[in-house]
């Protein structure tokens, strides 16, 4: 018999509805896995009692014939989401001990739909990082290893704990957030599916803010179908987030036909980076051929401002972060430094923030402070926002010319070793987001789909970028790609 924790959301939902299993059984199966997987560093706050309470309530709903989409399905929740009464600290020391008095809109929607929370998942501190190595909890570890090599690899970041937990079957799916690639890059590094929806599709209310014009929540799942199911439950207008879109949420799952005949798939020349590994190039060519075989029209396109996306991002994201993170001052929540004789309020702020923020967060807050400071605001910040407008225009023009979706690699490499980038310049780490960051700047939906492995057996993913608000069409194209690629590999259990 299949272990219950290895089921997809769709399989588990169907078994729950047919009475083959109960949510309590599913939840217990996942909790057992979570308990034995501390070596992965994925779950950082476990909530088994809450999970079993929610599972029992879900079973009662199912019995009563009231079983919405996510009813009874055990999930992991990224630590960035505020969850009522449960530690929510964005993997930062500065939020040590913080237990929100409220629930984020996205987790509330999932709970309203009957979902079960197993606990909170590891991540980079304040979602700033691409390897989960800036977390105050320590590293999350990729369940995948290179063939014949026990070296610990990164699950990617910032949603590294979410990616590791889903890939290792500790939970059926997890929430992630994506500011520059933080859902799609870890999904690609762990052989799972991750979608960042259109900016405004999911409410940001109650999600610890990093860069508010870029942040967006999304599901990280085992299959494209699961992503469609879970996104449907997470999405929707929220009066508490003025940037959330007042648009109907379609039934994403119902639109998964796998029929992409006649769809136009753009292949952007500028994503063919110098020095791109042959494996990534082949993965991309193979994916292109798969979509062509499925009846899509392949078209070469140009997105000329692509190379300026990362530098624009590393102005805009730190600028917004420096503003958002100003709230961590040791007054209202979290950590406050112990003060010396004669220390005033300024020393309290400075010591608290020096102790509470990790190195990467401090660096980004200060870069943001600099680019927003008097005399540099126009030269850096406003210039970056104008470049951002040009990046968005590139995409607008491609879509106006009839392109339905754009196919690119998700990452420039497979998962790298933990600690491997420790001595590298921060800019080297930033290059991980080179294929994903454009999508955040333009506000578009993007999905990472596992389609192959590298020579050492590690998973690799391709990214599809869609038109704004057309996640349903994007998911359908991803579904066709997933079916053609037939990626079924799983990590060998070592934890």
């Amino acid at each position, binding site marked *: 018999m299949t272990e219950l924790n290895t089921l997809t959301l769709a399989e588990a939902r169907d078994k729950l509805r047919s009475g083959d299993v109960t949510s309590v059984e599913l939840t217990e199966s996942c909790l057992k896995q979570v308990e034995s997987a501390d070596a992965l560093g994925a779950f950082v706050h476990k909530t088994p009692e809450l999970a079993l309470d929610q599972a029992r309530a879900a079973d009662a709903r199912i019995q009563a014939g009231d079983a919405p989409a996510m009813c009874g399905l055990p999930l992991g929740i990224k630590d960035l989401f505020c969850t009522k009464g449960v530690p929510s600290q964005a993997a930062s020391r500065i939020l040590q001990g913080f237990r929100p008095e409220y629930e984020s809109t996205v987790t509330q929607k999932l709970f309203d739909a009957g979902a079960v929370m197993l606990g909170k998942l590891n991540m980079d501190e304040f979602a700033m990082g691409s390897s989960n190595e800036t977390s105050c909890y320590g590293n999350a570890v990729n369940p995948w290893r290179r063939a014949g090599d026990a070296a610990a690899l990164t699950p990617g970041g910032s949603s590294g704990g979410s990616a590791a937990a889903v890939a290792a079957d500790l939970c059926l799916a997890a929430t992630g957030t994506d500011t520059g690639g933080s859902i799609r890059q870890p999904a690609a590094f762990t052989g799972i599916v991750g979608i960042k929806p259109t900016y405004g599709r999911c409410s940001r209310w109650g999600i610890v803010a990093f860069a508010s014009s870029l942040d967006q929540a999304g599901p990280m799942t085992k299959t494209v179908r699961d992503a469609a199911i879970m996104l449907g439950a997470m999405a929707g207008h929220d009066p508490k987030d003025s940037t959330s879109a007042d648009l109907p949420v379609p039934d994403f799952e119902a639109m998964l036909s796998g029929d992409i005949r006649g769809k136009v798939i753009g292949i952007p020349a500028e994503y063919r980076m110098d020095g791109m590994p042959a494996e990534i190039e082949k993965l991309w060519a193979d994916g292109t051929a798969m979509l062509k075989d499925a009846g899509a029209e392949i078209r070469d396109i140009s997105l000329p401002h692509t190379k300026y996306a990362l530098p624009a991002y590393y102005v805009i994201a730190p600028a917004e972060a420096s503003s958002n993170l100003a709230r961590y001052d040791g007054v209202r929540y979290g950590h406050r430094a112990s003060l010396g004789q004669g220390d*005033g309020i300024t020393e309290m702020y400075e010591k608290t923030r020096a102790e509470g923020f990790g190195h990467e967060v401090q660096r980004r807050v200060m*870069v943001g402070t600099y680019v927003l400071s008097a005399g540099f605001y126009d030269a850096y910040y406003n210039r970056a926002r*104008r470049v951002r407008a040009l990046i968005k225009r590139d995409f607008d023009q491609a879509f106006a010319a009839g392109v339905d979706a754009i196919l690119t690699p998700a990452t420039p490499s497979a998962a790298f070793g933990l600690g491997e980038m420790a001595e590298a310049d921060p800019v080297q780490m930033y290059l991980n987001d080179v294929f994903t960051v454009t999508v955040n700047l333009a506000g578009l939906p993007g999905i990472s789909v596992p389609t192959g492995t590298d020579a050492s057996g590690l998973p690799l993913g391709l990214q599809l970028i869609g038109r*704004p608000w057309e996640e349903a069409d994007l998911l359908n194209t991803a579904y066709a790609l997933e079916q053609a690629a037939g990626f079924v590999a799983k990590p060998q259990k070592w934890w």
Partner: protein
Amino acid sequence: MSIDLEKAAKVAKLARIKVEPDALPALAQEFNNILGFIEQLNEVDVEGIEPMTSVTPMRLKRREDIVSDGDQQAKVLANAPDAREGFFAVPKVVE
């Protein structure tokens, strides 16, 4: 544009993050690397391009100007490192 120690110290002060003097040289170097990377933006012709303000053209929602939330002092203070008599407590600000 290069950042010297004095400028790095000023940025740290503006950001209200205490940086020890011996950490300033490394910090200034990191700033310079990152700013060097950002300098590429100067190659782009942005003449006549408006700064992007929203990702999709949406009119911001308005709401009735009425009290819709509040009256939860205990919850607001629940996570404070130091709360007294219904207030947040901080070191003395005025002499």
